[in-house]
């Protein structure tokens, strides 16, 4: 994985020193909150309901064991012994004291991590496929490009005060696991018919109060033009994006109001002017970054199949986990392992310091020293020999992280919601917990099959509810929590936005409503191979409305 060079080290160290001084001046009263707030936000420090919150960037979701151990140390020393992985592949601590943040940042810097650009109207952490560099279906590893974008966008003087925040995602496989079509810029790595690498470029996707699917404005952008084209998009946005209304300031609104064709022309004009500039990436530079992400040397471990066959035959729980939590690796003797942070009744995305350390140990011993964070709030060990799967599984059982539910109805994305977040209107986590408990039975979950359920506690949609097969949005109505349900959303290569199914449900009704939806699907699917999403696309909303609202639905 990428290692900081001297410039990275100097830059992050200088930033820590700068923020230490700013915190000291705030605590002494030399800076007012009005002056300090934008400075703390630029360093990932928010103020939430119970305390400050520190958001730490995990570029393209890639973590080394030493970094995970440092997160465990920080959780134990400065927080309450746990951290929370987010839907942006980041990690949040919910309880740090402001006075401790400079020291925390110093410790993060010692393992090449920081919190810069995890807030504010700038280019945020670049996200990528969590199976990058390992998945069998990959055209190429998207992380070198994500790293190039990270270096280019860090403290970019022209793009540090954009109309609004800006999120870029990169995926390298035909199956889009990075949800690129709901990002400000989505890059889909592909090969031209001549075998050249480049990107399909999507612009103007996003969730929040005005969800929109990104528009493809270029079918093939050669890789060497990554920065000139991205700069062109950002320039058009920076110039024309609305600054008069926060709710209309994202690029998705600009694309919508300008029209895709006109916006694409504006971008192309800028691109033409920039194409032969210093932004053109020399092949040597791309190669130099690519080498940081060179695949690990994976020895032949052909004994894996026989070991696996015997272990799954004698251990039914292990067999279940193997069935659900593995993804096909490029190397036939290896697998990508999903470590579910969705234990039944647990908080989605939460992990204790002890668990962090144990995962770091497993990654070191069996996983080529690599850990990934998925935007679905799970962890991944991308390179595990199939011969070692039983040992990894047993290690995960010991720390309570062997839940065999990847991709199932209990593998729920949920934002922190009103339990922590100052913006939230309703709780998300308790709803996720109750749904998971209701569907806890493994055979029932597997009978239901692949189903993505996503919950947000407010309209800002950090829980990605718009692209959940079943989406739940918490709102506050007459002082009580109310949950609106959307169906048919999807955040993959065939992105769709969920449709609101009808009136919302109270906190004591929402789990039953989800069960009704699932039972309706089970009753109407053609056979087990027809997933929830496929069935919804075939059937439409009518049978689900009927099941949920009965005669009320007919009358409407």
């Amino acid at each position, binding site marked *: 994985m990428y290692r900081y060079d001297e410039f990275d080290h100097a830059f992050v160290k200088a930033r820590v020193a700068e923020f230490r001084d700013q915190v000291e001046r705030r605590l002494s*009263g030399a800076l007012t*909150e009005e002056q300090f707030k934008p400075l703390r936000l630029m360093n990932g420090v928010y*103020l939430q309901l119970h305390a400050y919150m520190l958001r730490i960037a995990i570029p393209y979701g890639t973590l080394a064991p030493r970094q995970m151990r440092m997160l465990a140390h920080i959780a134990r020393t400065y927080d309450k012994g746990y951290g929370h992985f987010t839907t942006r592949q980041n990690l949040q601590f919910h309880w740090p004291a*402001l006075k401790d943040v400079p020291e925390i940042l110093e410790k993060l810097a010692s393992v090449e991590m920081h919190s810069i650009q995890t807030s504010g109207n700038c280019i945020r952490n670049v996200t990528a496929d969590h199976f990058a560099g390992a998945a069998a279906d990959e055209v190429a590893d998207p992380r070198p490009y994500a790293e190039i974008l990270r270096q280019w966008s860090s403290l970019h003087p022209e793009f540090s005060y954009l109309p609004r925040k800006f999120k870029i995602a990169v995926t390298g496989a035909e199956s889009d696991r990075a949800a690129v079509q709901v990002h400000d810029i989505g890059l889909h790595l592909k090969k031209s018919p001549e075998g050249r690498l480049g990107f399909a470029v999507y612009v103007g996707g996003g969730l929040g109060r005005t969800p929109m699917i990104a528009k493809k404005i270029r079918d093939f952008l050669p890789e060497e033009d990554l920065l000139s084209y991205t700069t062109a998009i950002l320039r058009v946005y920076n110039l024309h994006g609305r600054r008069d209304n926060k709710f209309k300031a994202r690029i998705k609104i600009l694309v919508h109001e300008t029209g895709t064709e006109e916006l694409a022309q504006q971008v192309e004009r800028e691109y033409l002017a920039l194409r032969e500039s210093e932004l053109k990436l020399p092949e040597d530079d791309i190669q130099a970054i690519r080498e940081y992400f060179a695949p690990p040397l994976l020895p032949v471990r052909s004994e894996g199949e026989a070991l696996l066959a015997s272990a799954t035959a004698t251990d039914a729980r292990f067999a279940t986990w193997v069935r659900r939590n593995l993804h096909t690796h490029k190397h036939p003797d290896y697998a990508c392992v999903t470590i579910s942070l969705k234990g039944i009744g647990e908080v989605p995305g939460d992990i204790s310091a002890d668990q962090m350390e144990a995962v770091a140990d497993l990654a070191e011993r069996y996983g080529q020293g690599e850990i990934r964070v998925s935007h679905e709030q799970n962890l991944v060990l991308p390179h595990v020999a199939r011969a070692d799967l039983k040992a990894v599984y047993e290690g995960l059982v010991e720390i309570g992280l062997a839940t065999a539910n990847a991709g199932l109805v209990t593998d729920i994305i949920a934002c922190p919601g009103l339990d922590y977040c100052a913006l939230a209107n309703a709780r998300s986590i308790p709803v996720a917990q109750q749904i998971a408990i209701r569907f806890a039975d493994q055979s029932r979950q597997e009978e239901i099959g692949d189903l993505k359920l996503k919950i947000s506690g407010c309209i800002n949609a950090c829980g990605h509810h718009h692209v959940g097969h079943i989406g739940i949005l918490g709102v506050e109505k007459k002082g009580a929590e109310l949950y609106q349900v959307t169906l048919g959303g999807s955040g993959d290569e065939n992105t769709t936005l969920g449709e609101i199914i009808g009136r919302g449900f109270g906190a004591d009704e929402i789990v039953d409503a989800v069960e009704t939806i699932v039972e309706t699907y089970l009753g109407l699917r053609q056979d087990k191979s027809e997933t929830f999403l496929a069935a919804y696309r075939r059937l439409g909303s009518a049978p689900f409305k009927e099941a949920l609202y009965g005669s009320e639905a007919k009358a409407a």
Partner: protein
Amino acid sequence: MKLLAANRLLDGVAVWAGPDGVWVEDIGQAEIARDGDAEARLEQIGREAVARNLVLDIELIDIDVVDGAVRPLRLRERIRAAGPSIHPELGKQAAKQAASLV
């Protein structure tokens, strides 16, 4: 009836304006404003505390007193007073070992 809520600058902990201008961590010890004059006085205390860099984000919140105990009207403020509803062992509710306000 209203209370004045805020977060403490140093560590962000939720606090409320108590008697004699002291900021308290237990909402039960907060000073209750029962009329407009009392509300204005609490706000004045809040503004002075903001100016002295003790607290930030001051806000008057609506409450009831139920069986002698303070109960904020909004769930948001009840969670703030108790701690995350999913973690009874964390936040103020843990120290009081009392039932959550939620």
